[in-house]
């Protein structure tokens, strides 16, 4: 079965078995091993990627069902060797220890911030509850996400407002 995906902006066309999961397509067919697996039952979230900007567990997603869609993996967050702000805050907060949950955690956090630019701590915890982390106890991950939100809001409010309406995003 031909599965066409745009992954991190690049188009891929690969013939795969119909029952190939998105996880297998990414890790084994495209060799994008940044996406991890921890359970294959959708319980740990290590395999989280974005499909059209929304987070899914790629272990339970048939690749053929998302053919023609856009997929973003952890490899698609940084550009030209420069970490994106969320990745940078994960680094500076010590939000990654063994790092195995980190790719999935980043994708869930990125999805949250796109839909809810100013989340409360409770909302961050709720949004990340599908991503198990055994190393950090979550404190530093939550802090990294909250700091990113704050930084993005400041960046937005720093842009001159051309629409004429006041845009007071921020803390």
């Amino acid at each position: 079965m031909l599965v066409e995906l745009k992954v991190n902006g690049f188009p891929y066309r690969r013939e795969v078995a119909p029952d190939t999961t998105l996880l297998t397509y990414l890790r084994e067919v495209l060799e994008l091993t940044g996406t991890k697996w921890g359970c294959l039952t959708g319980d740990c979230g290590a395999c989280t990627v974005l499909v059209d900007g929304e987070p899914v567990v790629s272990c339970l997603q048939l690749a053929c069902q998302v053919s023609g869609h856009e997929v973003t993996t952890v490899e698609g967050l940084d550009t030209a060797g420069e970490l994106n702000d969320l990745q940078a805050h994960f680094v500076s907060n010590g939000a990654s220890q063994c790092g195995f949950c980190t790719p999935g955690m980043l994708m869930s956090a990125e999805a949250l911030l796109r839909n809810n630019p100013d989340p409360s701590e409770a909302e961050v915890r709720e949004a990340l509850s599908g991503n198990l982390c055994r190393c950090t106890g979550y404190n530093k991950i939550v802090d990294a996400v909250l700091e990113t939100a704050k930084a993005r809001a400041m960046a937005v409010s720093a842009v001159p407002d051309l629409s004429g309406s006041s845009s007071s995003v921020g803390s």
Partner: protein
Amino acid sequence: MANIDVFVPSTLEEAVAFLAHHGDRAIPIAGGTDVMIDTRIGRISPEWLVDLRALSGLSGIEYDANGFRIGALTRIRSIELDQGLRQRSTALVEAARVLGSVQVRTMATIGGNLCHATPSAEMPPALLVHHGIAEIAGPDGIRSIPLGQLFVGPGHTSLEPGEILVRVTCKAANPSSASSAGSCYLRQTVRWAMDLAGVGVAASIEVDEAKVVSGAKLALSAVAPVPLEVDVVSDMLVGKELTPQLTKEVGRVAAEACSPISDVRGTAEYRRQVVAALVPRALYIAWLRATQNWPVGKLAPINGVLSEEE
């Protein structure tokens, strides 16, 4: 999974015909969050997965004066975030927000949740307290049944070969109308997220201008082989004002009405106790909502404990 093929029908008729022809050898798949696990662990071993996701017209939430209709392919996440539903059926939104994770809710559909017929599933009780009617497409056309009749046993529905659940229609008060209704879904779990309900309780209450109960429904999950409607609640509450004693009595009756099992998520006796505890809370919160004594759009704590802040 070994050599499973995927068929992608382009019309509902084609899907129905394919499923009817292949019987047990073909399984419909939508979000896939249950089907993929079942095939991986060998609980089912179909030759075909029939991908319903491309079918048009089966996704979305619509409202009218009497209630709402949810297409079977509607994502749980869409239900969780839908502002209209939040006012018409807080129970459904409260059930949606505790199902799996954001990722699972983004993938999973309400049709899949209903048709997987897990006794602890979140959606059925919340729909049952809104008089859910299941619309089913099959080789002989469309038929409608009360949602409760969809469930036959753990993992089993009354769908015939070739039949597909296409829509659920529910009754709910229009927020702009004078009638006052409220609903609530609570559950008991070990973890506060990413868990299956040990017991799930949905309640809906309608009141008249004098705050006298004019309608009441109650449904439970995880305490019987199928989602359980407790019909007697209507007789017990309609025409009365809601009191703690009365809700407690309903809880006691509900605990007797159910038939839980003992397993790793608790003993039967414990589950009855939880039913007795959660039913009064769910009724009370539904009543607070019906009587406009609850902040609009605010969801209840998962187990309904309204703790005071320090």
